């Protein structure tokens, strides 16, 4: 087999010339597992931190679902955990707002951005493009540690006397700009901003690294149109992050000045407790524009890695080439581009000029086209495939299902006239939890089950995996489907209590049902947690290529060491989707097999 002649040492040291690290074989524990610069270790650090955050985020939502489902119940039994946030057996309303804010922040940023991209971009980019490591291992390590610091700050903000930030994950001013506005607007908000600033630094360090690695470190023969779709997705995710997170940084820097130095960027003519503030001339809508300029690309930052992971897993397990490889790349590009010009669909009801609203409505609805292209391509790939129902495959199919269900309501919300009715109701909550929250989680689960053997050298337990899948899949639909219904009826989101509205008392049962389903679905995740930890030590030993897949990571040893390939890096000759190629011996031909070895299956254009 032909291969490139780059030797292990030359390349590794080339990547690390900024600092001295000579002996890779005999590293101290601290440098091997904690301050590691190996992309695989950093990926696991992101994954494990992400999982911890996910359970915290889930626990927070279970608490506020308790409040929504059983508004009359007393929660004294939670007092040992929540302390004085339980007042006379009742959840404090201020803390309720803190809970929803932290839940959203944690899930969107800490789990589905850092946990998802951080894990899979780090793990898969070097392995799938055929590189020894990231372009800069050092910056990559810094990226994790900035994330870690950010996590610490956010975590401790939950234990403040005045509570964590409570203005919602979108932290709209004036709530977030006036420390006296509500308890969570004080120190909690400050810590939220600090955590987010650190988070943005982490994202930029990571993103810049991913992009440069993909541009410069692809192995011989790995052209852009031979890249697995995962890599395309990670590339575009990183580009979105590098271009949109700085705007959030700008937004929060201005916010800091409003909060602490008396400026009026977002403030104008406000009364707090009957007293007029001196601020004039600013605009809270300005913040919304800046926030959503990040915020909308951010939702795609969350979902694009899922797109990539799912495309890869569906092709592998349907034993068919992905349908419309180039259309998949094209739609990724289209979605990424459009994601920068639709942000104001979150602001239809904010007092923005309605003409501007209709422009954004038009642009928003165009996104449905590339999204539909992707969905049809996944379905076409499944169509008449030789489907192997592995656990990752089930999660991938679940992803497609959830993405469709949630995407359809996006088209309703994207109409500025319809949005007047459903804005800020549970309809929106249902939309984005299906299309973003659940889908991205399914993408993440699919990825973890699929690449676990490469990460830990063992397989996860299948039976537990199936139970986990079905409980989660059914659970998620049971939680979010009824929310559409209450949302259309006008049930507002972020309300601590609805019992004083007679209109909504008929929804008591449905709320109880949703809460029950949510808590069961959350508990089902402990099956995953158990499986994840147990399999690390007791799982079935993995083979080198357990899914009979084509991409380069499966050409490494079962437990790849530092530098990934013990010998030279394999060169690449073909695209990654040669599954069930007519005339071939096996139903898969890995990317590193030259055409000279597959004469029986070569097509006319392969011979060029």
């Amino acid at each position, binding site marked *: 087999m*032909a291969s*490139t002649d780059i030797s292990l040492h030359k390349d590794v040291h080339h990547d690390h010339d900024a600092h001295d690290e000579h002996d890779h074989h005999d590293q101290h524990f601290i440098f091997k597992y904690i301050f590691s610069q190996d992309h695989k270790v950093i990926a696991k650090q992101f994954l494990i931190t992400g999982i911890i955050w996910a359970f915290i985020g889930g626990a927070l939502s279970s608490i506020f679902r308790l409040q929504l489902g059983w508004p009359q119940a007393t929660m004294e039994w939670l007092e040992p955990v929540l302390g004085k946030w339980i007042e006379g057996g009742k959840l404090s309303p201020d803390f309720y707002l803190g809970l929803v804010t932290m839940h959203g922040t944690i899930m969107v940023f800490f789990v589905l951005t850092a946990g998802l991209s951080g894990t899979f971009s780090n793990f898969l980019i070097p392995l799938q*493009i*055929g590189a020894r490591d990231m*372009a*800069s291992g050092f*910056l990559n390590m810094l990226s994790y540690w900035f994330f870690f610091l950010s996590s610490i700050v956010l975590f401790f903000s939950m234990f403040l006397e005045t509570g964590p930030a409570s203005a919602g994950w979108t932290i709209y001013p004036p709530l977030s700009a006036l420390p006296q506005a509500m308890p969570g607007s004080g120190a909690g908000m400050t810590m939220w901003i600090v955590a987010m600033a650190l988070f943005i630094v982490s994202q*930029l360090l990571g*993103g*810049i*690294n991913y*992009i*440069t*690695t993909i*541009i*410069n*470190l*692809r*192995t*011989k*023969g*790995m*052209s*852009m149109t031979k890249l697995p779709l995962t890599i395309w997705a990670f590339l575009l995710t990183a580009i979105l992050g*590098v*271009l*949109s*997170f*700085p*705007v959030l*940084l*700008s*937004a929060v*820097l*201005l916010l800091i*000045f409003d909060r602490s*130095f*008396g*400026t*009026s*960027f977002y403030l104008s003519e406000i009364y707090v407790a009957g007293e007029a503030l*001196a601020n*004039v*001339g*600013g*605009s809270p809508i*300005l913040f919304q*524009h*800046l926030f959503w*300029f990040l915020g909308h690309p951010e939702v795609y930052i969350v979902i694009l890695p899922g797109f990539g992971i799912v495309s890869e897993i569906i092709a592998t397990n349907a034993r068919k080439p992905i349908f419309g490889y180039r259309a998949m790349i094209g739609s990724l590009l289209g979605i990424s581009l459009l994601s920068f010009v639709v942000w104001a669909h979150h602001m239809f009801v904010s007092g923005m000029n309605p003409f501007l609203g209709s422009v954004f409505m038009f642009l928003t609805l165009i996104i449905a086209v590339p999204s539909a292209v992707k969905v049809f391509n996944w379905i076409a790939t499944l169509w008449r495939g030789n489907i192997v129902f592995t656990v990752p495959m089930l999660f991938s199919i679940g992803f497609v299902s959830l993405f469709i269900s949630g995407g359809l309501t996006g088209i309703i919300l994207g109409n500025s006239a319809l949005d007047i009715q459903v804005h800020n109701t549970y309809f929106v909550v249902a939309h984005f939890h299906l299309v973003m929250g659940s889908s991205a989680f399914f993408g993440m689960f699919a990825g973890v089950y699929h690449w676990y053997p490469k990460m830990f050298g063992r397989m996860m337990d299948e039976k537990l995996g199936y139970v986990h899948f079905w409980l989660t899949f059914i659970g998620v639909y049971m939680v979010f489907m009824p929310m559409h219904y209450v949302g259309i009826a006008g049930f507002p989101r972020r309300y601590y209590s609805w019992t004083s509205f007679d209109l909504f008392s008929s929804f008591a049962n449905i709320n109880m049902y949703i809460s029950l389903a949510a808590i069961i679905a959350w508990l089902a995740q402990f099956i995953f947690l158990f499986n994840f930890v147990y399999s690390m030590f007791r799982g079935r030993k993995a083979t080198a290529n357990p899914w009979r897949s084509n991409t380069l990571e499966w050409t490494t040893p079962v437990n790849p060491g530092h530098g990934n390939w013990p010998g030279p890096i394999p*060169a*690449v*000759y073909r695209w990654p989707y040669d599954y069930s190629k007519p005339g071939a011996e096996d139903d898969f031909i890995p990317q590193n097999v*030259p*055409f*000279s070895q597959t004469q029986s299956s*070569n097509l006319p254009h392969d*011979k*060029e």
Partner: protein
Amino acid sequence: MSTTTTLEQPKTGTWDGGNEPMKASYGKLMMWFFLLSDTFTFGAFLTTYGLIRHRHNAYTGTAEDFTFSTAYWPIPEKVFNAFPGFHGVDLPLAFVALMTMILILSSVTMVLAVEAGHRIDKNDVQKWLLWTILFGSTFLACQAWEWSHFITGSDQGMLMPDGTRFFGANLAQNEYGPVLFADLFFFITGFHGTHVFSGIVLLIIMFITTVNGTFQRRGHYEMVEKIGLYWHFVDLVWVFVFTFFYLV
């Protein structure tokens, strides 16, 4: 060539992997992408400037009759018309023009430093880095003067509702016009100044490293080139800040 050999070799085009398709090392690419992201940070601030200015009334009278008032956005020539040593003389935008010239000059000397690096000429790199540091610091010093003048204010100041007079500007009050004019001035020029300051620190590190001969031993001055990219970017941003604040 027979078919088997072509089928045996991976492709070798520009984007076929195993090379640097943009002819730039990973370090340089990283600097480019960082600058791209920083462009968005500044872009957000300048958009903020535009939107907030749009929310305020423009002055409609003639330039001769212009007086400072919180009712409308001031004419920049009337605010920035002082020059050190020429107290009371109306020299619209003269000082900021000088500052801008100095910064552009520092970009020129930076180009010369990078060029000297390509020739592996240690002495020239040192010389031009030093000039760049000097010009950069002068720019910062000028900005400090501009700020202190803005903060101190004019001789007449602004009449407050309680009959006292307020001179100059801070983040909550502004004798030249709406308070947001001062807020944005301090914030955006301050943010830019912070970038210049970081640039000077980086340049000083480059200077020391050059003097120590580290780059000479390494055989290339790419690090200087990367910092050079940053420096040019910061200059370019100033041109935009200057245009927004002083010209339109």
